[in-house]
């Protein structure tokens, strides 16, 4: 409590079940909060709608990866077999679609997989090894059987007292203030202004 207000990350609350977490999420969504999140040991079916999310854009990265894969397979085969060093093997044409299909397919799949994983890492901002929520003791149970909701202080609707009451109304327990780590290297020219990053 004695910690500076600017390092407050948000208010966390624990919920007893996936169902109660989802109902709470629906109400937070309707209240207009933007900077908040729910945490659970497994993906909860219907939670995306409860939080008001659009479709995930990972598929866009997959598509880009797939197009890159197919194009590079074509360029690779056509350039090496028909342009750079055409060589007659078994009287087959230098380039034809049929024998190229397996490589087209494999490289498309390979680069789609790369695109998907890159997209996932970019969209989820991983790897990010540290995060303020890890400062909360109870949060360790998130990967076991804990269901949590965190309202972040960066949201314009956030107000410590009112937000705490809001979480209580939603049925949350163990409501806790979560702080960011104090800046280990404070810069004199950069006073606490970065709190609401």
């Amino acid at each position: 409590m004695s910690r500076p207000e600017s390092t407050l990350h948000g208010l966390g609350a624990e919920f007893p079940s996936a169902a109660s977490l989802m109902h709470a999420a629906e109400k937070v969504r309707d209240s207009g909060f933007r900077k908040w999140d729910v945490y659970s040991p497994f993906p909860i079916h219907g939670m995306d709608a409860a939080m008001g999310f659009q479709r995930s854009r990972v598929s866009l990265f997959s598509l880009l990866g797939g197009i890159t894969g197919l194009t590079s397979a074509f360029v690779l085969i056509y350039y090496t077999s028909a342009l750079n060093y055409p060589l007659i093997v078994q009287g087959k044409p230098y380039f034809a679609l049929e024998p190229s299909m397996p490589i087209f397919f494999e490289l498309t799949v390979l680069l789609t997989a790369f695109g998907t994983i890159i997209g996932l890492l970019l969209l989820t901002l991983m790897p990010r090894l540290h995060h303020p929520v890890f400062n909360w003791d109870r949060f360790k149970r998130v990967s076991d059987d804990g269901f949590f909701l965190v309202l972040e202080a960066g949201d314009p609707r956030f107000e410590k007292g009112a937000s705490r009451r809001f979480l209580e109304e939603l049925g949350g327990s163990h409501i806790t203030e979560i702080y960011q780590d104090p800046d280990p290297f404070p810069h004199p020219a950069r006073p606490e202004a970065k709190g609401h990053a």
Partner: protein
Amino acid sequence: MRAANPASEAAFAKAAEYIDRKPLVSNKRPLSWITDHVCRIVEQPAPLWWWIATVFFGAVAALTPAMLTYLVATGVGVWGLNVPVCWAWDITNFVFWIGIGHAGTLISAILFLTRQKWRTSINRSAEAMTIFAVICAGIFPAFHVGRIWFAWFLFPIPNANAIWQNFRSPLLWDVFAVSTYFTVSLIFWYLGLIPDLASLRDRATTRLRQMVYGLLSLGWRGSNRQWTHYEKAYLILAGISTPLVLSVHSVVSFDFATSIVPGWHTTIFPPYFVAGAIFGGFAMVLTLLIPFRELYGLHDLVTDKHIDNMCKITLLTGSLVGYAYSMEFFIAWYSGNPYEIYAFMNRAFGPYWWAYWAMITCNVIAPQLFWFKYCRQNPWVVLALVMFPNTGMWFERFVIIVTSIHRDFLPSSWGYFSPTWVDITLFIGTIGLFVFLFLLFVRFLPMITMFEVKNVTPEADPHHHGEHDSHGHASRPAPAKAHA
């Protein structure tokens, strides 16, 4: 949705009793029990049997580098292959291992897309098995090239000879297919591991564990902003892995089918190889899971229902393989081609008759016992029975490869292949390597996908409020309620 009148309500209840599914997690275990039971394997000191098994299989695995060193230092002549049988044990072993590597991705991708929820408690170990099997498989063709130090010629890297790879050759397709399959399977496996590695991180009691699992879990927080992208990425990877898993063994079969050798040149090869791969793969999953479930007491997670399902898949694919064997004979006869007919008669009644009938016994006859419920319900009977497909699928590849080429177009060059001690020891070495890697896997990584198993428990259903027992009903659409 449900009718309001009490008579039909009662009829519904009665029907529900009949069609009630066995729960995927027995004994109504809570979520924390699942975490605890799976993580315990990694966290508690390794049991004595683990040390004994790991040292033993580690020693057997050491035969692999030993034999490979001897092979490279002396020359390929230490293997038994020679004209006319230039593809012998090494390619047999390659196809055998790559086939085993099919069940993992099949379970994780195809059963995911078809919403088979029972896959959740077996997919992790099956995927691990896939990766280890592909590692074992890769050794053989790499060394089969003869001059292993030129193996990089297989990849399109500009070289001093200025000649590129022959993209019209199925052998090059194989390079791309197998390396893509390995890479994508590894990505898929790792993606599935991330939330479970976070569980291990959060439970870590030592600094080292916390650091290692913390780094590996990439800072996973289980936030829904992560889950939403995670689920999409998993779905896409499952979507692309499905055709991939079917393509790999198809491409492997092209190595044979696009040649003009009687016995190889058949259009049935791709589906026949894929069915055989799934057959052999599931047999291997059962071989590994039954003992480990017993040793670690995982009966509530890998239930008898799981084993029963896998036995049914083994029965189905075994029968498909049997159909393919008979269809090959039929087509040989129907083609009227005397060379084709000879190749098949020679296969069944020629000098390698013993291999052919071993294959038929193991792959076609033995799995038929899975029609009996008793054989599917008793894990030890299952374990004994799946040893037949394990052996039979090796014989199948041996039969296809060796019997087709040991009597080729010129009778003057007919021969009989016998393996040398190096062939045999190297194969035993890769079996050791496979089991050794699997033992390391169960020791250091969660062998059951905890977050997915939690997801098929009734608690995971957002409409579950605990006021009534709906265990095992999770897959049924819940009536719209509780939103008031």
